[in-house]
């Protein structure tokens, strides 16, 4: 019989990932420590979320998505932005002076399975993903069943991410600055190119042949059920890759 490698406990996971942790992420800081500071400092701490760039990016996405005729997306983005801002403020109140600390890895009871069990888990996930992609892809695009399927899975994945990484990873060294800046330049250029095409449409909700957005270019593929299923499976795979980061 093959014996799986013993999974590290939560405390060992935390030991891998301490570099960026703020107070409270470690085992000894489970209790809230509300510092009885002056009211002004408490207000500043409570607004810590408003100093998070990600919150403002999400708010911008919520605004532009809503005025582009996708109010559901806008409301969901607004909810997440508000939740992140509230969470950051809450943590800042508990631990003044701490940055956006890294939460410990989620303590999955079974750890990472090994050998055949891992193979079975991966096969199960692939089969589940294929079923999900097939079922949700069979629904009409922009229908309520498709919307429910996407929102349900998206909510689960975001909540998993909110808890912390699913497994400990080495902190890693610093990234090369120049190479990182090149990456950022390329990705920002792509976003600006898409935005330029969007703004050159007759309106935000009307497609343009001369200035197609990525959505317009993918419409032919997404208009068929098999095309939707294939792209949904790719979307799922990307989500799993990100959750594993």
């Amino acid at each position, binding site marked *: 019989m093959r014996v799986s490698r013993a999974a590290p406990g939560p405390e060992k996971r935390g030991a891998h990932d301490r570099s960026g942790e703020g107070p409270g992420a470690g085992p000894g800081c489970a209790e809230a420590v509300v510092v009885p500071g002056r009211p002004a400092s408490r207000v500043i701490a409570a607004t810590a979320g408003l100093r998070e760039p990600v919150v403002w990016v999400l708010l911008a996405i919520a605004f532009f998505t809503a005025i582009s005729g996708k109010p559901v997306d806008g409301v969901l983005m607004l909810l997440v932005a508000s939740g992140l801002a509230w969470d950051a403020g809450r943590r800042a109140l508990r631990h003044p002076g701490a940055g*956006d600390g*890294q939460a410990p890895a989620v303590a999955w009871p079974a750890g990472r399975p090994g050998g055949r069990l891992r193979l079975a888990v991966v096969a199960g996930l692939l089969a589940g993903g294929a079923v999900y992609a097939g079922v949700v892809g069979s629904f009409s695009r922009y229908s309520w069943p*498709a919307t429910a399927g996407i929102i349900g899975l998206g909510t689960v994945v975001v909540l998993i991410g909110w808890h912390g990484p699913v497994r400990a990873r080495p902190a890693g060294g610093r990234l090369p600055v120049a190479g990182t800046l090149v990456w950022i330049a390329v990705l920002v250029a*792509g976003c600006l190119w898409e935005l330029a095409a969007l703004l050159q449409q007759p309106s935000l909700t009307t497609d343009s042949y001369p200035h197609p957005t990525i959505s317009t270019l993918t419409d032919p593929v997404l208009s068929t059920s098999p095309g939707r299923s294939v792209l*949904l499976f790719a979307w799922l795979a990307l989500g799993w890759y990100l959750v594993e980061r």
Partner: protein
Amino acid sequence: MNSHEITIIGYLVVLGGIVVLEVLATRTRVPVPSLGDLLTRAMRSRTGRVGILVAWAWVGLHFFAR
């Protein structure tokens, strides 16, 4: 060359840039991080991790949902 083709070429240039950077990062000694390294670094904080996962969820919403 019309506007449609120029727009598509722009997307292809960006896509090509991503592929080139990933190849440089994984197949050469050029000091460029891979996209996976970038994502891992960005996801070390809670806001970064949630932000990137929300961006992923938004892609699904944008292309498939109402």
